[in-house]
């Protein structure tokens, strides 16, 4: 188990080095190269691990307890974590290289800070996928959330970025509360956090089933937050305030898929509670559809991609809920590659034209052919066009959902597939082939420098290569039913054709389509009012209630105390007057007291 340890230790070492060695960090670019080199080494090691097919685990005690540790930490290398290692290190590496050029006008200090966060993220994400226990997974789960918060707020002086960062943290934290409560309950029932021990119990049917439905639902809530499922998806589109490479890495390829990973990891326990699986599948399908509608009306290129990510995460979780976790996991891997490609491509476009608004772009194909080609490759993959990677994983999901006997989920996902092809090609036609806009005469947009172009081509090549690999022959030589292949190709083709007709040639006027769908259009443009509702709850309910409590504390709880002390002061003040300083007053007092004593002694005292 030393190789996974090396993969994990490399980014951590860089994180420590950069955060402690201030002079190095302040050099900016140098810090970036150090981090990139370490990530490259981690990537190579991860490749070796994947090729060797090594399996194993390592457990050490973490929280001591009477009679054995209360909790353990360690590493778990298996069929789930090994490919994740490759994906995470690969995308991290490419994003770090890309960022060197993308953020070249940042001051060196900021760039150094960026790479501190990047290396912390790489470490945390790798720690998450290698976790052998729920508790360790939660630890790294929170740490990737922290990195997400820090990187969304990388440009922290921008109010929008600051707002988006805390929104992301709070929203995911809401889900995480369920996660931590769930694992605590699970521990209470079974006495362990370890996956292998829990799965063994599930297999031997010694796992206490009492309350398991609640527990697994609570754990699933963690995935709802992190993987942006309805109704906690609202943070992901706002997270686009961060630098684009961050969106590619964290908010598309890796961190947001942690929820899918969690569900895939928990599969042996989830199959024991079909009610939760049904919820997972239905929420996933609903999220996929809902996000797709919002992507169709969005004009910010990064937000389109963000909604698309939400939608695709819904896809993966729907598959997992339908009992096809393997297909969902497969889609996670392919989606990680081509969505990173799309984000980095969008970053190149934004870098060139200086805006996120697709309607202010247009005609970029002429100026940026490289970017155009790779972006279209990614779009075709996302739309699910043969023979690219996305086609196979999407088909596997649809097949799994059919096999799982969930027709409702299937229909929702099929419609989503159509919409996905439509909204992605809407972006392509408007951005690359739309009517050209004047970009100012001094700087016509151009393809990015090679530091950015290299990662783009590499990801595009991978997208194609994975697809070709499956054309040659899928492992196990498995063939889905022909009607499914035809259907999914037809859906993708239909979506592309509609986008072409509406935005490519204008054969179908946009208004013609929009009018019958006016209600959905209205709601989707306003994000179904969910953000407004949450804003109201936060401002009105939470802050309002806190003000009430604060007022009560100051003016009632403390008020009563102050009344007591004011009364004491007054009583003291009143009693002080008795002490007049005149001897005869005191004699009267003494005489009165003696009289009282005598009366008491004569009549009331019992002998």
């Amino acid at each position: 188990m030393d190789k996974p340890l090396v993969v994990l230790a490399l980014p951590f070492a860089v994180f420590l080095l950069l955060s402690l060695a201030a002079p190095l960090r302040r050099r900016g670019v140098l810090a970036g190269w150090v981090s990139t080199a370490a990530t490259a080494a981690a990537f190579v090691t991860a490749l070796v691990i994947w090729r060797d097919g090594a399996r194993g685990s390592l457990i050490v005690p973490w929280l001591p307890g009477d009679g054995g540790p209360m909790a353990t930490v360690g590493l778990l290398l298996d069929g789930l974590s090994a490919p994740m290692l490759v994906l995470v290190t690969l995308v991290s590496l490419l994003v770090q290289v890309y960022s060197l050029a993308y953020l070249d006008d940042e001051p060196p200090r900021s760039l150094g800070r960026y790479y501190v966060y990047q290396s912390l993220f790489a470490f945390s994400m790798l720690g998450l996928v290698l976790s052998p226990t729920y508790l360790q997974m939660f630890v790294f789960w929170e740490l990737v959330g922290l990195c997400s918060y820090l990187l969304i707020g990388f440009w922290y002086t921008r109010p929008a970025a600051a707002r988006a960062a805390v929104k992301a943290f709070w929203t995911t934290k809401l889900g995480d509360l369920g996660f931590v409560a769930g694992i605590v309950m699970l521990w209470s029932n079974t006495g362990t956090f370890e996956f292998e021990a829990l799965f063994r119990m599930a297999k031997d049917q010694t796992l206490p089933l009492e309350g398991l439905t609640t527990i697994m639902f609570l754990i699933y809530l963690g995935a709802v937050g992190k993987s942006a499922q309805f109704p906690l998806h609202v943070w992901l589109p706002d997270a686009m305030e961060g630098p684009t490479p961050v969106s590619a890495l964290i908010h598309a390829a890796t961190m947001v898929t942690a929820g899918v990973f969690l569900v895939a990891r928990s599969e042996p326990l989830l199959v024991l509670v079909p009610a939760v699986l049904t919820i997972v599948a239905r929420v996933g399908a609903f999220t996929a559809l809902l996000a797709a509608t919002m992507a169709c009306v969005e004009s910010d290129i990064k937000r389109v991609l963000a909604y698309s990510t939400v939608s695709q995460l819904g896809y993966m979780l729907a598959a997992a809920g339908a009992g096809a976790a393997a297909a969902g996991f497969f889609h996670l891997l392919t989606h990680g590659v081509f969505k990173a490609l799309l984000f980095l491509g969008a970053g190149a476009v934004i870098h060139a034209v200086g805006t996120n608004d697709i309607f202010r772009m247009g005609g970029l194909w002429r100026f940026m052919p490289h970017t155009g080609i790779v972006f279209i490759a990614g779009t075709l993959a996302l739309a699910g066009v043969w023979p690219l990677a996305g086609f196979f994983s999407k088909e596997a999901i649809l097949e799994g959902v059919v096999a799982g006997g969930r027709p409702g989920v299937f229909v929702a996902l099929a419609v989503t597939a159509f919409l996905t092809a439509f909204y992605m090609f809407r972006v392509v036609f408007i951005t690359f082939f739309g009517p050209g806009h004047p970009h100012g005469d001094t700087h016509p947009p151009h393809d990015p420098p090679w530091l950015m172009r290299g990662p783009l081509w590499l990801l595009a090549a991978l997208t194609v290569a994975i697809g070709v690999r499956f054309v040659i022959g899928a492992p196990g030589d498995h063939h889905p039913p022909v009607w499914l292949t035809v259907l999914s190709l037809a859906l993708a083709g239909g979506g592309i054709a509609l986008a072409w007709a509406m935005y490519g040639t204008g054969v179908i006027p946009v208004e013609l389509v929009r009018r019958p769908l006016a209600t959905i259009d209205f709601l989707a443009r306003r994000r179904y009012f969910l953000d407004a509702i949450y804003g109201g709850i936060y401002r009105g309910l939470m802050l309002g209630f806190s003000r009430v409590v604060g007022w009560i504390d100051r003016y009632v709880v403390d008020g009563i105390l102050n009344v007591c002390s004011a009364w004491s002061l007054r009583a003291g003040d009143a009693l002080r007057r008795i002490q007049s300083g005149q001897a005869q007053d005191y004699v009267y007092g003494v005489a009165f007291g003696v009289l009282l004593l005598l009366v008491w002694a004569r009549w009331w005292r019992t002998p």
Partner: protein
Amino acid sequence: MVADAVRFPLLSVITWSPFIGALLIMSLARHRPLLVRLIAVVTTGISTVLSLWIYVAYDTEAAGFQFYEKLSLVPPLGISYELGVDGMSLLMVLLTSIIIFTGVFASWTVQTRSQEFYALLLALVTGVYGVFCSLDLFVLFLFYELAVLPMYLLIGIWGSSGEVRPRGIFAWAFRETGVGTKEYAAMKLTLYLLFGSAFILVGIFALYVNAGAASFSFLDLEAITFEFGVQRWVFLAFYVGFGILAGIWPLHTWSPDGHASAPTAVSMLHAGVLMKLGAYGVVRVGMGLLPEGAVDLAWLVGGIACINVVYGALSAMAQVDLKYVIAYSSVSHMGLVMLGAATLTEAGLNGSVFQMFAHGVMTGLFFALVGLVYEKAHSREIFKMGGFGAAMPGIATAFTIGGLSSLGLPATAGFVAEVLTFMGAWRSDHRWWLWPAVLGTLLTAVYVLRVVRQIFWGPPSPHFHDLVDARGPEWVAIVVLVFTLVLFGMAPGLALVPVDTATVPLLARIVSP
């Protein structure tokens, strides 16, 4: 259980070294501010080094009370000067050392009468060490009073006043008592704590008399099983008495006013360590001597703790003064401490003790940072500030780390404490305690990150100019405290191994009396 007496009286040196420092300061260092600080650094440094030493040297295999010292003071009454530490008090001694050592640096810039300031501060710390090390309840009480009384002068003279507008039906009382001034805060804190110590004193005497009036020694009293009726009401007396210092609702209102008015080092010490004296007293004296009473009243302790957690967090959210936010966060976190203890489970009790440590370090860090921010910006009004991150990146980073520990982010000590408390809560007889505890972390995340965003993020506020980052000795407190938070968050075993040796026997007595 008691290990052999160590020849060198380590605990006495730790305890009295600051007191000797105070005497030296008063006698030698008139008008020599640097010498005052040097003496303070050296004498607290001695205590710190020795506390680290006993922390390392403590034998966790043997467990029990170690570094034992005993000196008979009044033999006919059974009063003796008896010191010893077990895994729990060991951690508290370490916490005290960390906070006072950093506190000395954090108050480096005190200008007025720094001689008296440092002397009182050091005398107070001797009281704190004494409480944690004493095994004789009578002497413990004396030390307890020594720890409380100097606060009055420290806040009354070196504190700062705020403004509280009288409102509501009790407004007249606010005007008469002078709410908001430092004199008010000092008086409120002192009277409240003395009120509590009356309960403690009664409790101690009740045990002494019921045990046959032969000894005040904790070890002797521990061997006796008191009648159930006595256990109940004496536990209640200890709970109220020590609980006031731990900030239990609704007897907590001295804490926000006191902490907000106190100067930096005093806030650090008070919120960081003195509030722990209360919780420590409930666990050590209350639960340790009166196990049946503790079991019987656990519902009360835990129920009020739940109110503390949620109510404290909501109150913190409502504040506009930075120091009040931190002070109310202490009320909320002390709720978690008491909740963990009330679960009467191994995980919960370990979590409680760990939370005492984690919260002590964290809140010490917070108050040190607030002191720095105030020194640079001359304001504590959160909503006036903004964009400080660019001018003071070091302070911003440390504040964020403190905040993350506060909201229980993994890799900081706060997480370990919280998750252990959750585990204990769900295993206790009152499972519902889990939910307020979990809700508390969400509310904490809201108010902490809101404050961080407001102060350090966003565009620079137009109200402030020439802001600078921490400098020179100011870094000492920040670096030490941040390092401690992260170290114990990543390797909680450092603290939990010794703590576990103390909590397990305690629980054994509770579960099978």
